[in-house]
């Protein structure tokens, strides 16, 4: 029974649990409940990945209606891999949020937070698992609406403006996706992704299809905050409660990247999008600009959350760059970076949240002298920061390694050099914060005795992520296996001969 419906469980479980969490009423009850549900979903995701790696694709017919008429859930290595990352992060963030939101969200709204979190998680799982283009839009809206709520929950009133901006931009993005899906439906008469893929081949390069492609790409780009459509992200991340930022930064945009991969590789096909439409060049150019412009922006911000937000936009650039290299290795680099970046950004935002918990501010001046007062938090920040830079034995190095390898395979020497150049900017923006923490004295005006280490319930998930940063940086077998089989699987149905492409250029 359980095995049979395994594919649907990561969506259904949090979706059903969300209203229950609201009914539970007491903050601590709904916290325990939400965490438990999320942990269960994480276990299911693990099993799904196992199954997907062993058997290939798992197809699940929702309500017993066979595709292409009914909604189909399709689990393969690619989405099971991302789902595992999302559900693990969700669980850790929930553990972390019990103490963290006390300082940042009014007590009366705590249950609301857990409900919104579960809804958002259900939406993200849905986006990942569904094999239906319209259903994807529905889940995208579920997760986005929950996200707007979560951002606006912060007691800092600026979060309302940030949430509103996010709402406007996010809705435009979602509408674009809807229009795109509508156009596809218009010319093919189907919504199932695989069916779409088959029929698009027949209706080769019609104008309607291409317009649909354009709408979807722009819409998804807004959702994943691809430069220059990233403007909503820094303010939303800065003013949202820390736990929310940690969750969004490590999951929401990643899922949007996955959506882009899915549309490019499964629905439209690589040779169409990259071959005849030449989108690889556009994506590559935007990705590189994102890496440099936003990394640079990160070096001049004074609010540490904003620094990390801009860094996120830059890191998304790395993922898109991997995709735009049009090779199995490049796609694999992108997928690995989705997973790895979730680990590093999650840890970083948790550390920043811990600082806010004690100091009440996340300005860079608030970090002064914290190396002595909050040694564990700052050590976590340091290791995760080194990971962002891409120091060996951390996951950041693994991502960078595959990305540069992919670029070199395609003889894109300049791109490879630029990727490494981008990490130099990361040295600067992480270095600034570390220098403040370890080498600057705390100003006397602030009471230094009150600042001590945060509760262990905040430290534990943070350090779990930090240790994961190191573990997956040394033992890469799980990530590599999952990502490479996912990348191969995505490429499998496409005719573009990958091995020969390098020589052709």
């Amino acid at each position, binding site marked *: 029974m359980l095995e049979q419906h395994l594919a649907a469980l990561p969506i259904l479980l949090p979706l059903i649990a969300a209203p229950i969490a609201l009914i539970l009423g007491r903050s601590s009850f709904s916290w325990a409940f939400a965490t438990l549900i999320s942990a269960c979903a994480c276990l299911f995701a693990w099993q799904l990945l196992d199954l997907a790696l062993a058997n290939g694709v798992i197809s699940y017919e929702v309500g017993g209606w066979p595709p292409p008429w009914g909604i189909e859930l399709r689990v393969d290595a690619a989405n099971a891999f991302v789902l595992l990352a999302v559900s693990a992060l969700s669980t850790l963030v929930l553990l972390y949020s019990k103490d963290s939101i006390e300082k940042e969200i009014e007590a009366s709204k705590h249950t609301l937070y857990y409900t919104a979190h579960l809804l958002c998680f259900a939406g993200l799982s849905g986006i990942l698992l569904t094999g239906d283009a319209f259903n994807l839009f529905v889940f995208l809206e579920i997760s986005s609406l929950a996200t707007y709520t979560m951002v606006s929950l912060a007691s800092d009133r600026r979060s309302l403006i940030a949430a509103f901006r996010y709402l406007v931009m996010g809705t435009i993005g979602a509408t674009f996706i809807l229009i795109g899906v509508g156009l596809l439906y218009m010319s093919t008469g189907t919504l199932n992704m695989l069916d779409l893929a088959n029929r698009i081949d027949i209706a080769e390069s019609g104008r309607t299809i291409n317009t649909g492609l354009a709408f979807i790409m722009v819409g998804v780009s807004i959702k994943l905050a691809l430069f220059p459509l990233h403007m909503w992200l820094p303010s939303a991340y800065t003013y949202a409660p820390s736990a929310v930022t940690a969750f969004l930064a490590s999951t929401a945009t990643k899922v949007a990247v996955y959506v882009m991969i899915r549309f490019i590789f499964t629905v439209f096909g690589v040779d169409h999008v990259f071959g005849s439409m030449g989108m690889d060049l556009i994506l590559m150019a935007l990705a590189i600009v994102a890496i440099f412009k936003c990394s640079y922006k990160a070096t001049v911000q004074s609010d540490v959350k904003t620094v990390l937000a801009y860094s996120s936009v830059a890191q998304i650039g790395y993922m898109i760059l991997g995709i735009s290299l049009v090779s199995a290795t490049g796609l694999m680099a992108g997928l690995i970076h989705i997973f790895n970046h979730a680990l590093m950004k999650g840890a970083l935002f948790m550390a920043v949240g811990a600082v806010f918990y004690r100091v009440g501010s996340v300005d860079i001046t608030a970090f002064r002298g914290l190396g002595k007062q909050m040694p564990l938090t700052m050590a976590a920040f340091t290791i995760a920061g*080194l990971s962002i*830079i*891409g*120091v*060996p*034995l951390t996951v950041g190095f*693994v991502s*960078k*390694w*595959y990305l*540069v*390898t992919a670029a*070199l*395979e395609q003889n894109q*020497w300049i791109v*490879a*050099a630029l990727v*490494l*150049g981008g*990490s*130099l900017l990361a*040295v600067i923006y992480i*270095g600034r914060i570390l*220098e403040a923490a370890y*080498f600057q004295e705390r100003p006397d005006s602030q009471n230094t005795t009150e600042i001590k280490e945060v509760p262990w319930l905040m430290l534990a998930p943070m350090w779990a992520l930090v240790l994961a940063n190191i573990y997956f940086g*040394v*033992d*890469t*077998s799980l990530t*590599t296996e999952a990502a490479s089989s996912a990348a191969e699987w995505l490429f499998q149905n496409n005719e573009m001969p990958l091995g020969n492409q390098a020589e052709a250029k």
Partner: protein
Amino acid sequence: MNLWQGIEPSQLISLSILLPFVGALLVIATGKSPNLREAVTLITAIVLFTVVLAIYDYISQGGEIGLELIELFPGLSISFEVEPLGVLFALVASFLWIVTSVYAIGYMRGHNELNQTRFFCCFALAISSVMAICFSGNLLTLFIFYEVLTLSTYPLVTHAGNDAAKKGGRIYLGILLSTSIAFLLFAVMATYSLTGTLDFRAGGIFDDSHNKIVLSVLLVLFCYGIGKAAIMPFHRWLPAAMVAPTPVSALLHAVAVVKAGVFSILKVMIYIFGLDELKDLATTDIMLYIGVATILLSSCIAMTKDNLKARLAYSTVSQLSYIVVGALLASSIASAGAALHIATHAVGKITLFFCAGAIMVASHKKNISEMVGLGRQMPITMAAFAIGAISIIGLPPMAGTWSKWYLTIGALEADKLIVVAALMISSLLNIAYLLPIPVKAFFNTTTGEAEPWSWSETREAPLPMLIALSVTSLCCLVLFFYPQPLIDLVNMIPGVSTQGEG
């Protein structure tokens, strides 16, 4: 060494890397009691040296040791393999760690430094990564531990925690990290994508099938990527790092860190490019002359420095380029000279740094102009300084003679007279900036007349420091008269020989 006979040879490698690491943990554990902590450091250092000796024993009998640790990427793993050049470097580093530990105890206590536990802990970590660099079996491993070394020495450089230390630390980390990420990592990955392997192989992994222009670019990337070799214009970190306590400057910036840099360069030249391939590359000569320029320019800069440690730092920059030049001459005898110079320069320069630290602790003098007549108060220190200086200059009967000898012959053999001339001029410059210090200390008096002297006048540094600097200065002498073990070791490196081409 009989001590480690029962142990599987491949475990000796992991032992040599783990020992200092465990030592570091023990240092933290025993941080409350300074005597115990220092005992831990010393014992670890001594045990480590015996392990390296055991490896040396095994290798000199023709044995081979290898160890594969973890597969980091498919087909690419963190692996270790012992080869003679690495053993040479490991011997030097582990032996001098013992001496430096003795010295550091005297220095840190005499100077009342804070955070001594952190100091000894990071020190041990740095040695651990140096051992890993010595025995690394492929470029990836080398790169990884090269970075670990940079990061673990950063707290040592910024030990004082004041503004100068912060500034120095920023330059140190900035240059070393950015060159290694931007150039070295790029070069490593390009090598991998060209050849499909990163293993160190006798004769190199590049062959004629690879594009010469690409290889030329790679050579430049490697030379500058290994920022620890301090080739101009990326040498600024070395003088900046001199804000560190003197034992750090001594071991790390005369031996471990900088030698890890030139060691990596030698390894890349010998085992990645291969000396034969190196000869045909267009940029070899360009880099060679940049190395020559570094030798001469930094010697000139050294002369202008009044701060003793700054002068020694620039002297180190210049001496490191000897090794780079020796590697880039691409002749077997010059490479032998370069490899030998790792050892001989180490003992010479560490002596000089020890003396600088001893002077600082005993008389609180940092500037050379204040050291006139200091020989009266610190005769042993200044005598050791003279010995170290002569060794650096390369005059008999000191160890530095041998490496300069082979380097010069190598340059002659390669028909690069400019290099020969540069080596000679540099020796003269060395005389000009090093010898006046002991000479003035001994022969100039404040009154200008001969004054009677007795032992009671002396105010030497604490005993551990004196022991340390006497040992290293003795080493300079011993290695002149008994260099054979080192030369044998160098001759075991494939393609490298002190006998020349014929």
